[in-house]
């Protein structure tokens, strides 16, 4: 029976492994190999060792993209997570119209980043965008400006649009997690005279640990991939100030068709992703052991 079982296991695994091999493993390995060549879209390339990586080290748009990606993975993950948690805690207390209110908040999750980017592009429009209109209306018209074409604000403006959707993601997962917070335990803490803040810290937040791991891992993965929304809102500009590594890899590969350099940039993006997510998991495991 064991033999038959194993045989079938491999039978079941064959098709998934093949598809995964074609769509993921083969291309990833291929890119890894070609990051060490001067491959152009037209006319092949030769092995050049680490030349593409040295080129990257001297490339200011790479430095910018790396910094932007790091900002995005820290601020772009932490802020929506905290806001999402606060919203979830508030929503969890609502008894009236709870279902309706939650449905409203869930809606952005169904939208594509292309649509999200397009709407926020309209919100930021300098002449008749909603943000500048609102600032004008409350007498802060002096603050109004071209959010997406000012290098100082463009990245943050894009991150706000992205965060708007991420808040929803965090909130949804925290709300699901809150249903597992023991009401008895919360009640008991209440009877023991624990205030709302103490109950939150001693009972609710520890129970939400698994949810926060999910939220942060998903947000990190999304942040590291952030491409669509930048492409739609700024195209990486102004002056490439909003390029992330994902956008840079795309531009180098499919605008200038510099495949060798594009492969090298995507290798760096891959390594950065693994390091950041690996660090998060390691920190998490460490906390589990010392809890």
């Amino acid at each position: 029976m064991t033999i038959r079982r194993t045989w079938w296991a491999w039978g079941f695994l064959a098709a998934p492994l093949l598809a995964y091999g074609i769509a993921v493993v083969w291309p990833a390995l291929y890119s890894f190999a070609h990051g060490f060549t001067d491959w152009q879209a037209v006319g092949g390339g030769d092995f050049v060792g680490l030349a593409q990586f040295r080129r990257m080290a001297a490339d200011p748009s790479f430095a910018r993209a790396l910094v932007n990606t790091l900002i995005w993975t820290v601020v772009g993950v932490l802020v929506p997570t905290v806001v999402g948690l606060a919203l979830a805690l508030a929503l969890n207390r609502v008894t009236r119209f709870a279902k309706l209110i939650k449905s409203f908040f869930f809606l952005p999750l169904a939208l594509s980043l292309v649509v999200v980017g397009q709407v926020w592009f309209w919100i930021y429009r300098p002449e008749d965008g909603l943000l500048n209109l609102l600032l004008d209306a409350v007498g802060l018209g002096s603050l109004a400006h071209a959010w997406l074409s000012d290098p100082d604000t463009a990245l943050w403006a894009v991150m706000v649009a992205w965060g708007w959707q991420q808040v929803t993601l965090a909130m949804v997962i925290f709300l699901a997690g809150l249903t597992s917070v023991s009401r008895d335990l919360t009640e008991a803490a209440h009877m023991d005279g624990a205030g709302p803040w103490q109950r939150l810290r001693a009972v609710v937040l520890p129970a939400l640990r698994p949810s926060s791991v999910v939220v942060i891992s998903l947000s990190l993965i999304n942040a590291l991939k952030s491409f669509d929304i930048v492409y739609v809102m700024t195209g990486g500009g102004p002056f490439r100030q909003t390029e992330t590594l994902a956008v840079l890899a795309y531009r180098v590969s499919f605008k200038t068709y510099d495949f060798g350099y594009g492969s090298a940039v995507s290798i760096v993006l891959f390594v950065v992703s693994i390091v950041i997510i690996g660090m998060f998991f390691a920190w998490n495991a460490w906390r589990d052991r010392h809890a």
Partner: protein
Amino acid sequence: MPETVLATRPAIPATTAAREKGASRVPLAAALLGFAVVFLVPCLGVLYTSLKSDADIAANGLWAPSGSLSLDNYLQAFSVGGTGRYLLNSVLVTVPATAVSVALGTLAGYAIAALRPRFGELIGFFLLAGLFVPPQILLIPLFQGFNATGLYDTLWPMIVVHSGYGISLCTLVMRNFFRSLPMELRAAGLVDGASEPRILASIVLPMTRPALAALATLQFTFIWNDFLYPLVFTRSDTLRTVMVGILQQQGQFSIAYGVQAAMAVLASLPTVAIFIAFQKHFIAGLTAGAVKG
């Protein structure tokens, strides 16, 4: 767990303290409702813009209130903007890619969790690793591969890539699901002399319906909303999926905001509809994915 996500909390015992607490929650609900409306201003904005005429927008600005609303932009989106073609392309990509990725993930997850072959956990880990692979690293080789096989600028690249790339998430969710499933029924099937595919098809699969629904909802949303692959793997306007099609509009009719908004609404309708219908499943899928990963 998913059932309880949306359930309101049980009624609070009618002690004085509790009643006060309940009363204090009405303003909270009102405040949150208000905040929800503010939060949804971007969505409402697109919806509103899609009903305004371009002349109106040009004269009064994008966000100005308007007296005359109509569905003209939607008709235009189909007649001039080619939205029908874009939507059809999206369906032709999303439906098969969702089905294939979920099917393959089910096979892999079942094999790893229930049949436990040697090195099964290792293979599981190998398949899950794809979650951390940024799509950018796959683009150049796939672009070259699709060019070489004549599949570039067809709908096939998106179907192939989503089917394969989606396996990571699908395997993760299904493996976790099968682990939580009691396997006595499988043993009973084995004793009765049923073959493994038969056991999977007639005993196990009927029990997996909730997990499959969650996963399919999630995958449908991801694939429908994808922008990068169709951007890279297609070139002809007639082969664009709707997410790329929306942007195509930007260049061609640089001031047709109303039509653009109508296209955005149309492009969002399928995922929003699925989301509203299967909200429970969608959330279950999101949380099931990584909880035990």
